[in-house]
């Protein structure tokens, strides 16, 4: 058993040394493999980051009640007390039209905005935090609140987040599809690399078979070659996506700032990285195994 492990270790070392010794030849297939892997990875991270962000948005869904322009203090007090006693309302804050205007001015640096306007166009508003986060309950509450006297509209903030969720779902499907397609590509690319290697080392394989090499002995260096190639490609793909994220994040942050949001793409977690590397190694070895089985049978010992 120890001897067996030793043979494998020796094979693995030799294969890695070979890859490192021919950087140009290995680089080409390595580049192909890592780009093939970086594509679905980047898409995956983008989709997951958006999902995280949308998740944060909808975590505390809020309903905004806009009062009619003609609403008086008494109307506001009535709505206020209705909200206070409503069982499905957890809490609420009142934002007067005056406060809303100053907020707007402050936010956009538009001092004296009102001067050109005929009075304050903004309505009084309540921001309501519902007790239940269940979508059905939320919808019901929204309907009830919009029925209160002098309430112009009850806006459910998360409705557009729902639409975003739909897009995230689409993105997820796309990622799965891309990952599958490129997994096949990964198998085919390694299959081809190993096939070329086998053809280049025909004589060695033939002579080895003549003097008693088993099939597994002959396969072993090719499988290890593929294993290292898959692992290296996985690492390079990880580096590529990390670089992409580092480049994209400032631009995204700046864009999000315009909407007062904080959005950023996240990198791979250690678990995800391990999973990606594991898959890369598995698929590459599979490609090599298929190539070896197919072509070693042709290089016959006789």
């Amino acid at each position, binding site marked *: 058993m120890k001897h067996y492990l030793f*043979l494998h270790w020796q094979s693995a070392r030799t294969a890695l040394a070979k890859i490192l010794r021919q950087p140009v030849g290995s680089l080409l297939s390595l580049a192909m493999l890592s780009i093939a892997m970086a594509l679905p990875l980047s898409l995956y991270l983008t989709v997951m980051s958006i999902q995280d962000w949308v998740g944060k948005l909808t975590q505390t869904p809020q309903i905004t009640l806009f009062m009619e322009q003609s609403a008086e203090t008494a109307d506001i007090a009535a709505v206020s007390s209705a909200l206070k006693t409503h069982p499905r309302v957890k809490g609420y804050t009142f934002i007067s039209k005056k406060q809303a205007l100053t907020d707007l001015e402050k936010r956009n640096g538009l001092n004296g905005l009102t001067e050109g306007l005929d009075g304050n166009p903004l309505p009084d508003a309540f921001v309501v935090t519902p007790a239940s986060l269940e979508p059905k309950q939320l919808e019901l509450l929204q309907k009830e609140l919009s029925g209160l006297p002098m309430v112009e509209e009850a806006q459910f903030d998360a409705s557009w987040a729902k639409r975003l969720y739909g897009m995230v779902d689409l993105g997820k499907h796309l990622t799965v599809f891309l990952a599958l397609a490129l997994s096949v590509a990964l198998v085919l690319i390694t299959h081809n690399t190993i096939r070329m290697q086998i053809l280049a080392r025909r004589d060695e394989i033939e002579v*080895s078979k003549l*003097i*008693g090499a088993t*099939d597994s002995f002959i396969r072993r260096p090719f499988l290890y070659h593929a294993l290292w190639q898959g692992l290296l490609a996985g690492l390079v793909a990880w580096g590529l996506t990390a670089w992409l994220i580092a480049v994209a994040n400032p631009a995204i942050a700046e864009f999000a700032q315009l909407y007062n949001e904080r959005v950023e793409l996240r990198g791979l977690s250690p678990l995800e990285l391990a999973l990606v590397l594991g898959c890369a190694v598995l698929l590459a070895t599979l490609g090599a195994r298929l190539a070896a089985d197919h072509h070693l049978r042709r290089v016959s010992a006789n």
Partner: protein
Amino acid sequence: MIQFDQVTKRYSGGVEALKNLSFSIDSGEMVFLAGHSGAGKSTLLKLISGLERATSGSVMVSGHNLSKLRGSQLPFVRQHIGVVFQDHKILFDRNVFDNVMLPLDIIGFDRREAARRVRAALDKVGLLGKEKVMPIRLSGGEQQRLCIARAVVHRPAILIADEPSANLDRAYALDIMELFKSFHQVGVTVLISAHDETLMEDYGRRILRLKEGQFTA
């Protein structure tokens, strides 16, 4: 050690290379195999080393019935036999040392012990000074010695040589024969084929004479 029982070998083309052959070779014996080109010498040797399978009859080598062995078991039979191939089968992409190292790699020797054995084998055939040389730069006789070194480096119990003295001048051919005799003297079972019977007669060993796949007296 080696026992053929009514062995017939028919190639896929329909050629019957060996016809109903029976003979045996004892452990530690040194035997010659003579016959003209096409007589079936190489075929007989390939049956012993498991490179070809008998069409009928049984081939016993070191207690294994090769005709009954599964294909996946044949490599292990080959690992216990040293073969000097008629067409050498030298790898020209690596130096002398690495050529001789190959059988030990296949068996899975510890590197340091393997290197020691490779040097010992090269020393035995007189190529120790050329271990770093590429085989293309060796003379025909030296290439033959390289093949012999590779055949004996893992110290097989059986040594098979297919026309090891072909294309060599007589003095050199005798040198090679002496080399085989020295292996025989340390207990290896040796089987050597050749066209030229005069080389064999000096040794007073048993000679199997093949003609069109059958033994002649």
